[in-house]
């Protein structure tokens, strides 16, 4: 079991190395990628089941006990998010592979895509599993550096600005993270999370909140909390379809996970966190309003992505077991639905040759399956019943309704943001799927990686997207066990005794 915990990190890294060594054999690259991620998905499922039954699973790497060595920890929250994330990365990989086959043929190997993709997955896994603050930083770097390469790969003149924005902002956030780690070490003398939980508690409360706020800002940048979110709608939409799907699905949520983990483990609170409530309101509204005015489909989705980060923040801000559980459930749902929508957007763009809403039309007739593939995740994101989005939103609303007057008011904002989200998505539906049919526009830039304006979207691309839709539907169908699981995860988070005991053993009692 303890070896299994390391494999979600080490296997993709090994896969990345193999795909570089075998970078002339296209099939090898594809097989390695799909096999590795499938194995990781299975392992994540095993971890989830075991962690749910027996409590957090801990591996002390090299046999060195924490806080000396690095501990990997899989508890309910991290195992759940790992499982969902891996399913998403797997589906996106299949989509990307088949897009490439459709555009370049079967024999084309990729020099950078596969290794970077697998490295990114390794980074994501490690970020979920690590029980060490510095390793979390390193995991972020692994994930982010790979994402820099993926987003700037084959950029042209018009898209390179997006790459610069993304890389620069991320670099700043990384350096601030490192600064925060240095300051935390200066104050406490440890970087192990479980150990920190004990040591931070002994600091004066003023300094505790300094560190808490510092980590909030650091993770807030990458999680796209308003007003730290501006970079996101300027950069994600310019990435190629599958890459944007990967980013939208995973990166912000990994940061949110880090926020959730650190705030609940290190900076426990007894009542709702007013500052975060305010930020949640701002995030929900600014994102949703931004989505309303966009003409670029991907930008619109990016703004909605930001908006729904606010939903998760709301759950965290409530800061009780129900709120945190709601946030966890919402994160799991959000990972799948955003990735799906960006994949669908990729399919739409391939068909129409444009991302501009006012230049599309009539796809409901010409591509009914695409309409279905869009409608289901769109309804999910808008939180319409009976989708997963509804269940997750309900969990948040109930937590908010129970926690006090402030949170009830913010629950009202959740409702408003849902309505605005629906409005934005209805705009997409009306512009893209209704109206007169239009001929696809020609690809404006032939030379770049993205081929658009073609009907050549292979069946596996649809199947991969459909697979993600199925994951999202499964979250709704199995909402019973899942909400029970996230409720237990929420209880773990607000009372992290089991986490600390699992990592530190008897030393946790300090």
């Amino acid at each position, binding site marked *: 079991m303890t070896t299994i915990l390391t494999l979600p990190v080490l296997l993709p890294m090994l896969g990345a190395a193999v795909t570089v060594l075998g970078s002339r054999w296209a099939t090898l690259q594809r097989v390695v990628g799909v096999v590795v991620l499938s194995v990781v998905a299975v392992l994540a499922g095993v971890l989830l089941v075991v962690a749910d039954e027996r409590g957090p699973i801990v591996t002390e790497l090299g046999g060195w006990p924490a806080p000396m060595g690095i501990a990997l920890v899989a508890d309910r929250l991290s195992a759940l998010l790992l499982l969902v994330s891996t399913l998403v990365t797997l589906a996106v990989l299949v989509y990307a592979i088949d897009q490439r086959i459709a555009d*370049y043929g079967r024999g084309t190997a990729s020099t*950078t895509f596969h290794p970077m993709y697998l490295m990114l997955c390794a980074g994501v896994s490690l970020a979920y599993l690590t029980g060490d603050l510095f390793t979390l930083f390193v995991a972020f770097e692994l994930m982010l550096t790979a994402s820099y*390469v993926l987003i700037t790969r084959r950029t042209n003149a018009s898209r390179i600005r997006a790459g610069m924005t993304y890389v620069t902002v991320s670099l700043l956030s990384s350096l601030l993270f490192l600064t925060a780690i240095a300051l935390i070490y200066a104050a406490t003398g440890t970087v192990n999370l479980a150990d920190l939980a004990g040591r931070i508690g002994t600091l004066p409360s003023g300094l505790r909140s*300094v560190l808490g706020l510092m980590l909030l800002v650091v993770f807030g940048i990458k999680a796209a909390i308003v007003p730290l979110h*501006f970079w996101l709608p300027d950069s994600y939409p310019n990435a190629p379809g599958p890459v944007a799907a990967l980013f939208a699905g995973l990166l912000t949520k990994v940061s949110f996970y880090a926020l959730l983990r650190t705030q609940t483990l290190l900076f426990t609170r007894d009542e709702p966190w007013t500052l975060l409530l305010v930020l949640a309101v701002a995030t929900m509204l600014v994102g949703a309003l931004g989505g309303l005015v966009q003409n670029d489909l991907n930008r619109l989705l990016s703004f909605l992505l930001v908006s729904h980060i606010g939903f998760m923040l709301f759950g965290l801000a409530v800061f009780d077991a129900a709120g945190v559980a709601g946030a966890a459930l919402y994160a799991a749902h959000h990972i799948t639905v955003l990735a799906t929508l960006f994949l669908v957007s990729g399919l739409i763009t391939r068909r129409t040759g444009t991302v501009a809403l006012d230049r599309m039309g009539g796809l409901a007739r010409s591509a009914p399956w695409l309409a279905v593939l869009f409608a289901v995740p769109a309804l999910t994101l808008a939180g*319409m019943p009976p989708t997963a989005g509804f269940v997750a939103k309900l969990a948040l609303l109930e937590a908010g*309704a129970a926690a006090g007057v402030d949170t009830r008011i913010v629950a009202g904002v959740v409702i408003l943001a849902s309505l605005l989200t629906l409005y934005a998505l209805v705009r997409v539906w009306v512009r893209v799927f209704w109206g007169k049919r239009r001929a696809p526009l020609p690809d404006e830039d032939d030379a770049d990686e993205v081929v658009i304006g073609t009907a050549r979207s292979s069946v596996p691309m649809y199947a991969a997207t459909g697979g993600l839709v199925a994951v999202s539907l499964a979250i709704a169908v199995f909402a019973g066990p899942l*909400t029970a699981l996230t409720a237990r995860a929420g209880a773990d988070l607000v009372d992290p005794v089991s986490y600390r005991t699992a990592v530190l053993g008897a030393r946790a009692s300090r």
Partner: protein
Amino acid sequence: MLALVVAHLAVAALLPLVSARHRRAAFGVAAVLPTATLLWALANTAPALHGGLTTTTAWAPTLGLTLSFRLDALALAMVVLVSGIGAVILVYCIGYFGAESPEAPRNAALLLAFAGAMLGLVLADDLLTLYVFWELTSIASFLLVGQSGEQREERRAAVQALLVTVFGGLAMLLGFVLLGEAAGTYVIPEILAAGQAGRLHGGVLTAALLLILLGAFTKSAQLPFHPWLPAAMVAPTPVSAYLHAASMVKAGVYLVARLAPGFSDLPVWWVPVVVVGLATMVVGGWRALSATDLKQLLAFGTVSQLGFLMVLLGSGGPLGEISALAGVALLLAHGLFKAPLFMTVGAIDHATGSRDLRKLSGLRTAMPGTAAAAALAAASMAGLPPLLGFVGKEAAFAGFLDEGGLRGWIVALGLVLGSTLTAAYSARFLWGAFARKPGVEPTPVHHRPGALLTVPIWICSVAGLVLGIAYPVVDVLGASYAAPYPHVSGYHLALWHGLGLPLLFTAVALGGGLVLHAQRDRITALAPRSPLDAQRGYELTIAAIARVALGVTGRLQVGSLPAYLATILVAFVLLPGAATVLGGGWPAGQPLYHSVMQVPLAIVVVIAALAVARAKRRFTAVLLVGVIGYGVGGQFIVDGAPDLALAQFLVETLSLVAFVFVLRRLPADFTEERPPRRVRVPKAVLGTVGGAAVAAFAVVLSGARTEPSSTIGEFVRLAPAEAGANNVVSAIIVDFRALDTLVEIGVLFIAAAGVASLVLATRYDRRGRRRVESGQSSPEHEEDVLG
């Protein structure tokens, strides 16, 4: 019951397969399930009237999310409307949509799906279950109104219907959650019991009830949310007849009827219901009098009737029993007269190609059967005996007249006014559709409606007559629903209650209606613009939302990277900074320096750093950065970190080389124009404040340390013995924390690949412009990056 609902949705999903073979058959197949549902419900009348038939399926019990259903009197009445009329209308569709209609497959599937959702809604025994199906009906309505979305009116109406109803629906959801939180359950009977017992109170209850009413009002097209309903008339007539007359628009009324027994004593409940309901009844009736499109006329009539039902089923009061009874009767009556009237319009439209009552003339003789059926339905609408509409209306008047008092009289008079208008527009409908009008040529009938178009009209109209005569049946049903109200009146539905005020009121309404109809020309001249145009209100709201969205986004999302970075810095300085100022203490005894050697190195680093900030040439800046790097390396030596210093020197050297390689290609000066002072100074200030803040954090936080590092002792003890390394730092890197190292070389791996991909592909960027063909071998740039 869940199985029944799911069966509807599943068959709807499979229906396109049938449509692909035979378009008209799809509607026939679709009609089977509603028929079966109706029969099932009727077969279960006995249990339904005595306690109800329930099933429960847990979905997400942690959240209180269960799918609970109950067949009771109210649900039974609604099932008659939803499934009974649904089946009839689906048969009507066979005739309405031709064998070749491209619209047919979509409509068949959507109508059946809607029937399933609506069935779930009316059977729901749990607030959340109800909400689930509530929104599903909104979505089905959106798709049915929008159709193929090719006409702008369709799109506009569909979006308006969706936004308004979902707005209400979401508000209602919040209300449900608040109510559920207060009551500790979402099960409707338990909540009603808690409400009746007065166990719920306070601001939360007020907010919850108002939010729930908001949902009910939007769905049932109450003032001022009603304009979506007339707008939705762009949908095909069977859709209008089913969704926007018989079933979906009743959902709000139904919800109010469900919850009224628990809460109608509270002013926060009955005041809005009565005020909004009466206003809707009057305004809707008034607007119907000036409509020229027959469907519009019926739509406003529906708005009016929904207001009526809202008052009856929601107002409660001391004699809530009677108005509830009247409400159930009229609920049934409305479905049974409004659906055939709509279908009549469809038949007329089909036969003549027009719905404009100014153009239609002489159809009474051309389509006598249709005319007779429509007359029967319109009579029920106007409240003529012995139809069900009359029975219900009598009871309605009786209830409020008996209640008396200010409230009773106001409501009763309001109802008379509304009923007068109802009688007037009923007459207007019959006159407009069938009468021979002076000066208008008799409208030619292209093809007479066949049996599929007329029989359904007859079925509904006659049902209204039969139930009117067989009023005890409705009475039993209504009494079962009204049971929770106090039994004080002993009132029963009947065709004859003797002479009395209620009968007088009915007569006044009918007479007044005929007078109004006689004065139709003046009214049409008077009516067209009411001062408060709710439709314009909707448009203004949407435009305002767009303007706010544009204003907010335009101001915040400025697209400038420096602005974004500055925001991040401000947040990083401000949030923890404020906390530091508030809660931090400057450590006592902070030394100026620990080792003399730190001072000269620091001076070098600081001077080089300040020079970098001012450097104009790239190369100079890079060299100065090198100086900083070596200076920091020197500090590492002083601090006792030789490994770190070694790595720092080597990395710095390699960085310099890399920079120099790239600088070969770039101009010597920074290409950036020197920005004006008003840009430069704030940036420098922000940067300085940021630096000062970090320094302050460092001092304050490092001064707060009370314990030694958790690990230093272990590391020093174990490094030589267990890790085989005297160099503790090295032991940490390759052994104690080897994972960090592993991941870190992963980062290097990525960076190298990224640099190669960025730089080596550059030479192909400008050549581009060639179409990538399918099946082509490796793109050139890939080969290059491969090495």
